[in-house]
């Protein structure tokens, strides 16, 4: 049996396929963890997971985005240590990267 080609429905099917793939990513972590018993070891692994995701996402990005980005992130972290405000950290980070990019870095 052969499926008819997507034809004019192509873009909508492509969007639906993306939506399905993304939704499966959204729920599967929660569903899968439901089958794993929460032993102390698993708990420790889960406790380490958020920070690990953050570091694993950000570090290679700094490498790809360059020096200005790295300094901006450091400035944002420093701002966060001094004043626990995400807004301020965001403003500080964006200011640093805009200035450095304007200066040609």
């Amino acid at each position, binding site marked *: 049996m052969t499926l008819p080609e997507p034809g004019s429905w192509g873009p909508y099917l492509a969007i639906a396929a993306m939506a399905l793939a*993304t939704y499966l990513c*959204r729920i599967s972590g929660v569903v899968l963890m439901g089958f794993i018993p929460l032993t102390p070891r698993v708990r420790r692994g889960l406790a380490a997971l958020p920070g690990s995701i953050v*570091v694993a996402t950000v570090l290679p990005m700094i490498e790809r985005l360059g020096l200005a980005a790295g300094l901006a992130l450091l400035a944002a972290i420093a701002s*966060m240590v001094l004043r626990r405000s995400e807004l301020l950290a965001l403003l500080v980070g964006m200011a640093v990267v*805009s200035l450095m990019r304007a200066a040609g870095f």
Partner: protein
Amino acid sequence: MPSGAKSEPPVAAQLSLAGVRLGIRRVAVLTPGIVVFSVAFGAAAAAKGLSLLEAVLMSAMVYAGVSQLVAMELWRPEWSWGAIAGLAVVTATVNARMVLQGASLQPWLARYPRLVNAVHLFFFTDANWLIGTRYQSEGGRDLGVLVGAGLALWLIWVVATLPGYLLGALVADPRQYGIDLVMPIFFAAMLVPLWRGPRAALPWIVAGIVALVTARLVGGYAFIIVGALSGALAGALLDDPA
């Protein structure tokens, strides 16, 4: 998915309007960054020849910025089933980090009926994961925070796609203002409230090193998954201080 008919939770499974409001307040910081990101997507979609309906539909149904931009790289005028399947696979690899993000919140979400989780997870994304993670690490347990932040961002994301699409070429290079760094900065800043001392940060170092090496070796976004899993594994193997 069966609706969670059994009423199990011994601990109160909170989901309040006050929580929703708190979530919206916490995510407000990110509004300008998300608007510009969504506008950039709308502009890219217009340039690639998507109809306005297709662009808005994608923002509403996929609601995952990086994967939408990647899809614009792969977009084509004619679609075969193979091309559609390929796009789905690429989308899944870009968004695979959500699997781990969801897993990290599972102990909290497990208290709620499956149907509730199945619905609100549609609005699950980087920003409300970060906000939910921080809120939970402070002892908060109201699911409304996650829901409010996710819904508010979704609405902004979908609406802001419109001006991007319509004004397209008028959008200046967002890089100039550091807009491409909004999420990385927000991610990095979140390390401060997550900090639990150098010992607890040891897995983070493992995650960082493995991610850097993986990024060197393979393209795409595999470094997030490989790095984060290594960090979790290191955390699991580290024994608690006596």
